C-alpha cells in the first residue's frame, strides 16, 4: 500500500489537536494514536524545552544582573538586602518569583491563568517592584484588555493556596492572532526585568518562542500540552469551584423543560476519556494521573464550526455564531431519516428524527433558497457536535471506558452543544456512557502550565 514512503509516525507525544490527514498529495501523516505513557512527568520537556527545574535555577543565576537593573530603576525603594531576602525566601521554599502565570497558546485562543497573591504583607508590597505591581493591578482591576482580551470573572477561583501562598486564580483569554500585541505589551511593561519564568503550552509556545525571545526578551518554558491538560483538570477538579462542584452533567438533556445541570462528583476519575475540543479535537484515554494515551483526534472541531459559520453566515465572533445557532432550525438544512423513509427506518432501528445527511437538504436549490443564516449556523453546530460525540463514543467503546469528560473552549457558553453531546452519548450507548463537563472548560492547559511552574505534582 505504498505506506513505505510515508514519513515515520509521530514520535512525540506533545502535539496539538492535530489529527486529521492533510492533502493526499502531501503525504506526510503521522500515527494518529499516541502510545501509552508512563510516567507522565517530565516527558514533556524533552529536547528543545528546558525543564522547569532547569529554568528556575537559570533564573537564579542571572538574577545578579537583573538586580542591578532593578536597583537603578527610579521609584524603587527596595534596597538590595530586602529584594534578595524575598528572593532567597522564595527559593528556599522552592517557590518561583511572582508573577505566576500559566499560558496556553492554542490555534485560535490564548488562555492565560494568573495567580493574584492576596496574602501580600505590607513589607512585601513595599518591596514589590513597580512593574510587578502594575501587572497585578492591570490584570485584576480590568475585565477586558484591549479590544479582544477578556477576563472570565465568573470563573475566578478565590482563596486558593498555591505553594503556601493564598490568592485568587484569574482566567483570561484573547485571540491567538493578537499574540504579537501581547508580546509587545510584555516588552512595554518590561516583563523581562522580573526575570520570571513563563511557562507556556500549546502549539503557540513553539510558534511564538522566538518572538518572545527577540521582541520581549523573554525565555519561554515550553510544556507538553496534553501533560498540562491532564494535570490541570485533575488539579482544578480537586480544588472545586469556590465551594461548588467543578464537574457536572445534564439530566434530561433533550427536554428543554426538564433539562437540569447537576453536579457530578468525579471521585473515581479513572479510567476517563478526555475529549478536548479546541480548534481541533484531541481524545485521550486517562488511566491514572501518570498514565494516559492519546487515542485519536479529529480536525472537525471548534475551528471548523466557527470557520464554516463565518463562510456561511458572515458572522465575526464565536458568540455571534452561537447566538445565531440558538435561533436557527437545523432540520431545514439537514436531511433527516424521516425525510427519506417517511418515519423511523425500522430495519436498522433508526429514529426518524436522526440526521441522515448533514446539509443534505442543501443539495436542492429550492431548499437552499429557503434557509436562513441562523438555520445554517445551527446545522453547522449540530453537525460538528454530533460528529465529535460519535467519534468519542466509538473511542469509549474501543477503550472500554464509560465516563467521558468534554472540555475545551468550543463548549464555552455552548449549552446547545453540551446538551447534544449528553443526549447523543446517552441515546446511542443506550445509557452506558455518561457525558461530563467541567466549569473551567478551556483553561486546563494553562492551569497545567502554571502547576508546572510551581512544580506542583
Amino acid at each position: 500500500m505504498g505506506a513505505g514512503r510515508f514519513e515515520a509516525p509521530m514520535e512525540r507525544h506533545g502535539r496539538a489537536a492535530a489529527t486529521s490527514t492533510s492533502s493526499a498529495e502531501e503525504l506526510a501523516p503521522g500515527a494518529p494514536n499516541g502510545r501509552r505513557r508512563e510516567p507522565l512527568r517530565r516527558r514533556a520537556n524533552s529536547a528543545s524545552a528546558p525543564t522547569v527545574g532547569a529554568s528556575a535555577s537559570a533564573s537564579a543565576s542571572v538574577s545578579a544582573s537583573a538586580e542591578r537593573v532593578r536597583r537603578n530603576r527610579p521609584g524603587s525603594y527596595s534596597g538590595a538586602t530586602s529584594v534578595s531576602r524575598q528572593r532567597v525566601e522564595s527559593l528556599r521554599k522552592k517557590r518561583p518569583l511572582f508573577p505566576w502565570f500559566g499560558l496556553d497558546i492554542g490555534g485560535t485562543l490564548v488562555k492565560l491563568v494568573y495567580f493574584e497573591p492576596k496574602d501580600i504583607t505590607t513589607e512585601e508590597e513595599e518591596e514589590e517592584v513597580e512593574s510587578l505591581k502594575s501587572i497585578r493591578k492591570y490584570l485584576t482591576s480590568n475585565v477586558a484588555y484591549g479590544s479582544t482580551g477578556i477576563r472570565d470573572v465568573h470563573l475566578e477561583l478565590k482563596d486558593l493556596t498555591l505553594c503556601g501562598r493564598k490568592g485568587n486564580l484569574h482566567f483570561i483569554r484573547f485571540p491567538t492572532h493578537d499574540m504579537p500585541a501581547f508580546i509587545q505589551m510584555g516588552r512595554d511593561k518590561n516583563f523581562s526585568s522580573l526575570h520570571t519564568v513563563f511557562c507556556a503550552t500549546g502549539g503557540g509556545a513553539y510558534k511564538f518562542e522566538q518572538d518572545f525571545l527577540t521582541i520581549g526578551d523573554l525565555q519561554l518554558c515550553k510544556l507538553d500540552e496534553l501533560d498540562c491538560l491532564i494535570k490541570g483538570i485533575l488539579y482544578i477538579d480537586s480544588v472545586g469551584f469556590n465551594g461548588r462542584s467543578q464537574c457536572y452533567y445534564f439530566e434530561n438533556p433533550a427536554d428543554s423543560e426538564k433539562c437540569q445541570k447537576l453536579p457530578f462528583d468525579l471521585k473515581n476519575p479513572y479510567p476517563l476519556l478526555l475529549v478536548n475540543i479546541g480548534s481541533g479535537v484531541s481524545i485521550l484515554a486517562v488511566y491514572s494521573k501518570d498514565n494516559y494515551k492519546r487515542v485519536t483526534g479529529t480536525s472537525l472541531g471548534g475551528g471548523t464550526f466557527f470557520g464554516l459559520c463565518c463562510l456561511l453566515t458572515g458572522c465575526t465572533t464565536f458568540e455571534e455564531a452561537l447566538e445565531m445557532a440558538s435561533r436557527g432550525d437545523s432540520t431545514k438544512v439537514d436531511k433527516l431519516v424521516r425525510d427519506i423513509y417517511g418515519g423511523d427506518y425500522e430495519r436498522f432501528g433508526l429514529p426518524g428524527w436522526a440526521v441522515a445527511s448533514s446539509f443534505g437538504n442543501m443539495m436542492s436549490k429550492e431548499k437552499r433558497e429557503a434557509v436562513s443564516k441562523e438555520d445554517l449556523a445551527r446545522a453547522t453546530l449540530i453537525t460538528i457536535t454530533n460528529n465529535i460525540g460519535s467519534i468519542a463514543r466509538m473511542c469509549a467503546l474501543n477503550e472500554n471506558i464509560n465516563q467521558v469528560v468534554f472540555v475545551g473552549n468550543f463548549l464555552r457558553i455552548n449549552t446547545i452543544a453540551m446538551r447534544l453531546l449528553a443526549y447523543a452519548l446517552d441515546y446511542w450507548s443506550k445509557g452506558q456512557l455518561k457525558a461530563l463537563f467541567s466549569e473551567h472548560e478551556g483553561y486546563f492547559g494553562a492551569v497545567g502550565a502554571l502547576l508546572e511552574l510551581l512544580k506542583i505534582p
Partner: protein
Amino acid sequence: MAECGASGSGSSGDSLDKSITLPPDEIFRNLENAKRFAIDIGGSLTKLAYYSTVQHKVAKVRSFDHSGKDAEQDHEPPYEISVQEEVTARLHFVKFENTYIEACLDFIKDHLVNTETKVIQATGGGAYKFKDLIEEKLQLKVDKEDVMTCLIKGCNFVLKNIPHEAFVYQKDADPEFRFQTNHPNIFPYLLVNIGSGVSIVKVETEDRFEWIGGSSIGGGTFWGLGALLTKTKKFDELLHLASKGQHTNVDMLVQDIYGGAHQTLGLSGNLIASSFGKSATADKEFSKEDMAKSLLHMISNDIGQLACLYARLHCLDRVYFGGFFIRGHPVTMRTITYSINFFSKGEVQALFLRHEGYLGAIGAFLKGAEQDNPNQYSWGENYAGSSGLMSSSPELCPTQRARSGTFDLLEMDRLERPLVSLPLLLDPPSYVPDTVDLTDDALARKYWLTCFEEALDGVVKRAVASQPGSVDAAERAEKFRQKYWNKLQTLRHQPFAYGTLTVRSLLDTREHCLNEFNFPDPYSKVKQKDNGVALKCFQRVVHSLDALGWEERQLALVKGLLAGNVFDWGAKAVSEVLESDPQFGFEEAKKKLQERPWLVDSYSKWLQRLKGPPHKCALIFADNSGVDVILGVFPFVRELLSRGTEVILACNSGPALNDVTHSEALLVAERVAAMDAVVCSALREERLLLVQTGSSSPCLDLSRLDKGLAVLVRERGADLVVIEGMGRAVHTNYHAALRCESLKLAVLKNSWLAERLGGRLFSVIFKYEVPAE
C-alpha cells in the same frame, strides 16, 4: 441529531430529457426476451436490471449411429457435428443518468415482447419519486425493496461471482488499481456506503447483516455544504473544483499552530489540526476550489476515521466502500484510501468495487428472483457485453462525459453449473491463477496486446471458414473483429477496465466476443478432423510404446505428451506451421521439441517417483484436441491406469480454440476404448472418469471449477494433478501451489514468452512438484 446516516439520495431536481435517442443496439440488448426487471434510482443515476435469455448457436458432437466396425473407413470423421440453438440465461444491467429515465422507459415499453412480467422491483432513494412514471409507462407494479438489503445482496453477489471485483486504489502507483483475488469466504466484511449520509454495515453471512453505525457527514454534506460555499450546483463539478484546490489555504494545519517547530517535535506539519480553521475571519476571501478541497478532505477523513473505529471494534479488516460519493471517482477514492491508511496505520484496507454502482440493482433483482434461486448458480461476467471500469469517469474522459448519454453496461452469464475452488489448492485465499499481471507489467502488456491484434485476422478468417453454409458469416465475423479490436484498444488505455489484465482475460474476452456473434466453436471442424487423424494413429503409437522397456517408455510417454501439446491452434507460431503443412504430424512435432535438459526439467525426479508406489488417483487437465489428447494424453493415462492409478480426465465444458471439450473427449474415449482393453475396462469400472471443468477458457482458474469435479477429486482422494499446455500450465498456474504432487508441462510456442523465461521457441517446461512435508 444523530450520527446515523441512512443511505438515500439527494433530489437533484432532474428534468426529464425526452428528446434523446438511444442507441438500441448497444443498450437494452436482448430486451425482447426480458423476463424480470429491477430498477435502482439514485440521486443522479438510474440502474436498470433485467433477466433475459440469449439464444446461441452451439456446436454439439455425437457419435454416428452405427456399429463400430464401419466407422473405421478412411473418409469418415470420428463423430458428427451439428449446430444447435441453445438458450442461456443472462443478466443485463444498464446504468444511465436520471434525465433519460422517461426515454428509457418508453424504449422498454416499445420493445418488450414478453408480457408475463407483472412487477418491477425498485430500490434507491429515487424509487418513490419515479414510482408513478414507471407504473404508467411499463404497466408494471412497482415493488419497493429495502435499499440496504439490496445493496448487501448485490455486494455478496459480485464478490462471489466476479473475479477481481474488489480493488485497492493507489493514486501515484502504476497501476493505480490493484485488484484483489476473491477470497473463497467473503464473510465477514464491513460495507461503508457513502450516499447522502454514511451507513456502516457489518455483513456476516448471506442473509445476516447488521447496521452497526453511520454518520450524517457524507456525500450529501459534500454536495449541500459545497453548493452553499461555492455556488456550484453539481456534484461532479464540485469534485472537479476540489481536484484543483489547495486545502491549506482554508485548513489550519499543525504547522500553522506550531510554526516551524513541528519538525523538531517530529510532528507532521501538514496534518490538518482544524478543518476550515483559517476561514474563521471576516476579512479574507477564499477560492471555491480551495474550499471544495478542504471540504472533501474533511469529509473523507471523517468517514475514514469512523470506518476504522468501527472496523476495530468489530475486528474486521476488509472494508468495502460504495455509494455515490465514491462512484469510481479517483479523487474520493484517493482521499478515503489515504484516510484509512492514516487512521488504521495500514491495518485496514480500503477496498472499492468495480461494479459498485450496480449493487442496488443487482440486489433488487435478486430479491425479485428469489423463487428462481439465482444464488445457487454461478455467474460470470461477460466481457463482450460489459463496459469496463471507468468507462464514464469524468476525470478520465472529460469529453466523453460532457457528451451526454453515457450508458454503462454489465452483463453476466448464468453458468450451467456451480463453480468452486479445487480442494487441492494449498492456500485458496492466496491462489492467483495468472502468472503475469499485465496491468502491472507494461512491457508484457504491449507485447500481448499487439500479439492479439495481429492474430485477429486469422481468427476472423477461421470464424468465417467454420460456417461455410452461412450467408452472414462474413458480416458477423467483421462485427466480431470490430468489437474485439475496440476491446483491445480500451485495454491499451485502461488496462484495469475488467480487473487485472492477463493473457487469460484477453483470451476469454475473445471467446466471449466470438460467442456474441454466433461463432460458438470456430474450430469444431478442425478438431473433428484432427481427432479422426489421431485416432487412426493411436494403436500404432501404443504398440511402439509397449515395445519399449519401462524406463524408455516413461520418457517416451512424457515426450508424447509434450509433442502432442505442439498441436495448438492458439499459438501463432504453430498455427502457421499447421496451415502451411497439413501433413505435419506427431513425429515432426517430436523433432521440434527441445532436447533434454529442458528449460525446466525435473524429469529425473518424476522418474524416480514412478519407481515408487502408484498414485491413488490422478487429476489430468487436458489441452488440445487431436494428437495432443489422443496420442499424448491417452497413452499417458493408460500407463497410469496400468500402474493402478485411477484417473480423472478433466476437459473444458465449452469450446475454446482447438481445446478438447468434455463432450468431444467422451466420444474420443469411446473410440479409444474400442481399440484398447486397458482404457475400455477402466472406463467400465469407473477407474477412468471424464469430467468437465466448468470452464470455456483456454486457461485454467483452479478457484472456479465445476463442483462435480471438486466432489470427485475429494471422493477419489486425488494425489496427483497433471496440468498440460501453455494456457493452463504457463499463462496460468505456473506458480500455483497444491497440496499434492503436481506435474505442469508445456511446450513454449511463443518465442517472446520463451525468451522471457530464458528459453527459445519450443522450449519445454517439465515441472514436477512435491509439496513440502
